[in-house]
């Protein structure tokens, strides 16, 4: 069936690259100015009756001709081709190769360790898995092509990030999650990683002072490796092509921490997810878009958490990381497990239905589900505008304990739980 796809103009390069990757480089496309969100019907009519900002021809002409202009030879053939990436790049000096990696956008623009054959071979001694074993596939977003990668390719990126061989099973588990740390979304997401189980202590991760900062070799380099491997193994994270985040996100450099299991008053996160305490597990949380913080629980903690939940974005469930002092404070208030605290947060973290639905991504992701009768969205959609409704269900709220006990602090991140992956499987 003849079709034309309509996009906003900042996505022209991405739309063409996607059409090429799908073997249809001449797919008919038309463009309107950005934004569509927030424009009034008359303004949108102006787009339709105006000029396509990419072709500089009338938009409606692009649409109508896209459906009726006869096909030429290129349209009839499409394009088929094999792409490959070599195992090694041409030999060069340290300086030349560093420059090559920067020019090819294979780095995060901080210096990298060049993945020489010797360094990669040494890294591979950190796992029993063969170098050519396929680990998985990654894509910048759901509808982009997914690229495949092997144990060796993961090891290459781990070397670049500065990892030691004993970290490799954790990096492999993160790669095997199938969750990219470099989403191409306009929303500038990051993916946060948490490590549980004995591997934390075996490789020297630190859940104490400065746990969420650049103060531990394993924490820092594993998180960096997850980001570097995401961008390189999925086919890039290049602005305008494979990355469209408007503001970007500092958590795209490195965001990995271990839970302070030994100092937590509650069972560790991976045990909540069905793993045994003695298993080593990496968990990933998609988001990293907002960060909120506070102390407590003090006398007014209820009011504080209500305010915090009102400030969370409605489409991105939180990951709450509590210093052990704060966690023990909640135990003293009767929250003797994480589930009880999540239930309280869910029940008290409410917004008016009007505010809840007045969010770009809530509209995009949940409105159609609500209209189709899918709960809990349908009930939220039926609520009166001023009715206070739950933003998140208890099961959507993740809670972890980490920190150096120099302060009863907590931090809340946009961090929708995605999955937990065995690290032991990659030893």
């Amino acid at each position, binding site marked *: 069936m003849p079709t034309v*796809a309509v996009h906003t103009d900042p996505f022209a390069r991405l739309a063409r690259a996607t059409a090429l990757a799908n073997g249809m480089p001449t797919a008919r496309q038309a463009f309107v100015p950005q934004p*569509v969100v927030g424009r009034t019907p008359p303004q949108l009519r102006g787009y339709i009756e105006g000029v396509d900002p990419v072709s500089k021809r009338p938009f409606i002409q692009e649409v109508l001709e896209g459906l009726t202009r006869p096909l030429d030879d290129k349209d009839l*053939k499409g394009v088929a081709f094999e792409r490959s990436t070599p195992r090694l790049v041409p030999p060069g000096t340290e300086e030349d190769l560093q420059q090559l990696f920067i020019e090819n956008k294979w780095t995060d623009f901080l210096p990298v360790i060049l993945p020489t054959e010797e360094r990669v071979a040494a890294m591979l001694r950190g796992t029993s898995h063969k170098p050519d074993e396929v680990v998985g596939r990654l894509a910048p977003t759901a509808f982009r*092509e997914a690229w495949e990668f092997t144990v060796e390719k993961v090891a290459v990126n781990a070397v*670049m990030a500065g990892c030691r061989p004993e970290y490799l099973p954790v990096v492999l588990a993160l790669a095997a999650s199938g969750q990219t740390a470099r989403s191409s979304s306009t929303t500038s997401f990051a993916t946060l990683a948490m490590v549980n189980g004995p591997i934390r202590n075996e490789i020297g991760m630190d859940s104490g002072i400065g746990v969420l900062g650049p103060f531990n070799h394993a924490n820092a380099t594993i998180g960096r490796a997850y980001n570097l491997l995401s961008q390189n193994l999925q086919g890039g994270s290049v602005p305008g092509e494979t990355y469209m985040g408007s503001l970007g996100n500092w958590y795209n450099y490195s965001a990995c921490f271990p839970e302070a299991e030994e100092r937590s008053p509650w069972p560790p996160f991976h045990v909540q997810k069905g793993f045994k305490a003695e298993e080593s597990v990496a968990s990933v949380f998609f988001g990293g878009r907002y960060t909120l913080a506070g102390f407590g629980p003090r006398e007014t903690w209820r009011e504080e958490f209500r305010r915090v939940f009102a400030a969370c974005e409605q489409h991105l469930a939180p990951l709450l990381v509590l210093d052990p002092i704060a966690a023990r404070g909640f135990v003293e208030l009767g929250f003797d497990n994480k589930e009880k605290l999540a239930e309280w947060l869910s029940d008290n973290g409410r917004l008016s239905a009007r505010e809840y639905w007045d969010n770009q991504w809530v509209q995009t992701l949940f409105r159609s589900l609500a209209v189709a009768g899918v709960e809990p969205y349908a009930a939220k959609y039926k609520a009166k505008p001023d009715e206070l409704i739950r933003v998140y269900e208890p099961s959507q709220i993740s809670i972890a304990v980490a920190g150096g006990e120099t302060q009863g602090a907590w931090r809340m991140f946009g961090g929708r739980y995605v999955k937990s992956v065995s690290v032991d499987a990659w030893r």
Partner: protein
Amino acid sequence: MKLSVHDPRGYPPKVTGKRLAPRLQSLDGKVVYLVDCLFDNSEAFMNQLLDWFGEHLPAVNARIIKPRQSWVDDPDMRKRVEAEGQAAILGVGL
């Protein structure tokens, strides 16, 4: 001194060429589905496009249709578009 260094990229899938569907000689009398991809405000855009067809090309039978959910393929919707339509305009993709 020259170094031998690995390429850090993964392996892209093979690209298989696909030919475009034959175009229509005219849209007159044809059903053209306007597929609302459910991005925020794309409904308003498609409503305006529907109105534009009504005002300027009334011989075209333009209809708005929506998938059940954003970001998720809706085979039932596609079947209906294929069964009842002769062309489709998809949008507004960001």
